[in-house]
């Protein structure tokens, strides 16, 4: 296949050299829709947004609109949001509750389990020709509800969700488990930030995969101080006590920035602006020690679950999805998480912190969007495309046998406590990306 030969010179993760072409080339973008987005497990939404039978939320899988809904018997489904007759979107609301989805074009209507239930003039116009059982809404091949988050894939031969996340489960759980170490126990706050950024979807995906190097981007917010203790953009004390780990699963494409707190040191103060919040987290962390034993010391940060879902496992706890909207545009959806059982004052404090940190109005991330926007723009030219990006930082420094005072952690890990940063996680992401782009089917991806 011509594209495969093409990619050969474009993505060389062993040397840390990646062509700009993969970000700006239209053919590569089109191939990604088939090779990556039609195969991978993708994030759809949160169960708390579809609590009752008939509840639905319109989401996206890659470029395409999908409906997440709970049918009348309580089962969760994900359907392509397109009428089987002529393709009209059967739902143009963002969320709600319904008995059926009626297409506004010719009136075909579908039950919340996807069954085609209504066809105008069915008897007279079609007679016995139309086999309704064959014309229900198109449903994803596999769906998984994991700790209240809903994931799906279009590929019937994809591995199970748990196999897809593999050893990354430990890190994804840092977002989805309650702060006190209970399994699950988080909820999404109402309201999903949705906005457009003029850049390829891989800019934010690789940034979140573990870019500790872009301190200069955020120096202005650090000077101003929006963190939970009124300093910097976040509480730095406990981070600075911790070992800084870049964790990658190159064979899966997933990664996260992690922090391993010392096993023998008292915790640095945090949340100094709000005693109630400080007290809440202190109590949670005591409980976490009891529940998790020595692994209580592991805390997460930003990460990317291949291909386009980014958990941020530390305050601001969020989950971002980078929806491709053409090679030069990304539509970001951002969910915000809190412990479901946290007191109202804690939820309120965190919500305010999340809004002033994250998204288009966040003092921190506004500057990220500027960088992705103009990095992309300046990489589109004929000359620019002849010169690849550099991902050499920290080459050859990772270990598969990380250990700290008897605690072992899964993944290929680069300790960047001294180095400050590496591009280990980005290389893992692009290694997997290349495999997806070259593979003929899931058989070659296992």
């Amino acid at each position, binding site marked *: 296949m011509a594209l495969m030969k093409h990619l050969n010179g474009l993505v060389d993760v062993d040397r840390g050299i990646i062509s700009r072409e993969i970000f700006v080339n239209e053919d590569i973008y089109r191939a990604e829709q088939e090779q990556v987005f039609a195969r991978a497990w993708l994030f759809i939404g949160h169960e708390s947004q579809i609590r009752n039978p008939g509840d639905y939320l319109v989401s996206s899988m890659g470029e395409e609109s999908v409906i997440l809904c709970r049918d009348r018997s309580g089962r969760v489904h994900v359907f392509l949001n397109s009428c089987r007759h002529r393709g009209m979107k059967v739902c143009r*609301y963002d969320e*709600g509750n319904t008995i059926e989805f009626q297409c506004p074009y010719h009136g075909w209507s579908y039950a919340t389990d996807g069954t085609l239930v209504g066809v105008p003039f069915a008897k007279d116009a079609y007679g016995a020709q139309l086999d309704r059982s064959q014309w229900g809404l198109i449903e994803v091949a596999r769906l998984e509800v994991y700790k209240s988050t809903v994931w799906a894939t279009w590929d019937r031969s994809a591995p199970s969700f748990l196999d897809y996340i593999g050893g990354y489960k430990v890190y994804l759980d840092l977002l989805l488990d309650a702060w006190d170490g209970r399994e699950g126990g988080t909820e999404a706050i109402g*309201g*999903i930030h949705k906005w457009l950024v003029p850049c390829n979807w891989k800019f934010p995906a690789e940034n979140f995969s573990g870019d500790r190097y872009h301190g200069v981007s955020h120096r202005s917010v650090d*000077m101003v*101080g*929006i963190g939970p203790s009124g300093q910097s953009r976040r509480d730095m004390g406990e981070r600075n006590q911790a070992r800084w780990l870049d964790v990658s699963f190159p064979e899966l494409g997933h990664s996260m920035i992690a922090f391993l707190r010392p096993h023998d040191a008292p915790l640095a103060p945090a949340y100094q602006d709000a005693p109630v919040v400080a007290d809440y987290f202190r109590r949670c962390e005591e409980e976490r020690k009891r529940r998790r034993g020595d692994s209580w010391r592991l805390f997460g940060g930003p990460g990317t679950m291949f291909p386009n879902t980014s958990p941020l496992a530390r305050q601001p706890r969020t989950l971002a999805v980078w929806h491709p909207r053409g090679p030069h545009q990304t539509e970001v959806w951002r969910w915000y998480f809190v412990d479901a059982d946290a007191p109202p004052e804690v939820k309120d404090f965190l919500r*305010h912190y999340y*809004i002033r940190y994250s998204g288009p109005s966040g003092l921190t991330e506004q500057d990220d969007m500027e*960088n992705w926007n103009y990095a992309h723009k300046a990489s589109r030219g004929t000359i620019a495309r002849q010169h690849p990006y550099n991902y050499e930082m920290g080459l050859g420094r990772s270990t598969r046998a990380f250990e700290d005072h008897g605690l072992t952690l899964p993944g290929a890990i680069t300790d960047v406590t001294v180095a400050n940063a590496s591009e280990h996680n980005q290389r893992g992401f692009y290694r997997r990306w290349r495999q997806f782009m070259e593979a003929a089917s899931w058989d070659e991806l296992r």
Partner: protein
Amino acid sequence: MSDVERLLLRQEVEEFLYREAELLDERRYEEWLELLTDDVRYFMPMRRNVPHDETEREFTREGVDISWFDEGKDTLTRRVRQILTGIHWAEEPPSRICHMISNVQVLGAGPAGPSGTEIAVKSRFLVYRNRVETETDVLVGKREDLLRRVNGGFKLARRRIVLDQSVLLAKNLTFFF
């Protein structure tokens, strides 16, 4: 209130809003902050596509949900300080911003409490931003303000900004409405 009083009040409100827009467009942000009461609420909900008869779900809720803005003077002050650092790259080099304020309606004076008389005002905005070269955003919507009379003048005590977009079509919101 007599007709003359009503006209004078409207005139005074419009002058306040236009002066405010002038300060923002001239990047005199610290002077703009002085126009806000210390307990100001600055709120901009997100909007959902909902059926016409379920409008109560259209907006994210102040104090409850995630919104574009839901903050007071402290965070607004930090936004100003960030712009003034000169290294807030999303606004450096500075954007060219123009606030068009129109359809000003004085909806009525609220109860005269210990903090003085408050006046409910509604207006339309068109905020134009152009930055670097071709990057251009046009954001249009409504504002619902509460102006408080302080020392003979007005201060902004509350602003609800209703942007006429669902998915935000701008990459960021580094400016004020």
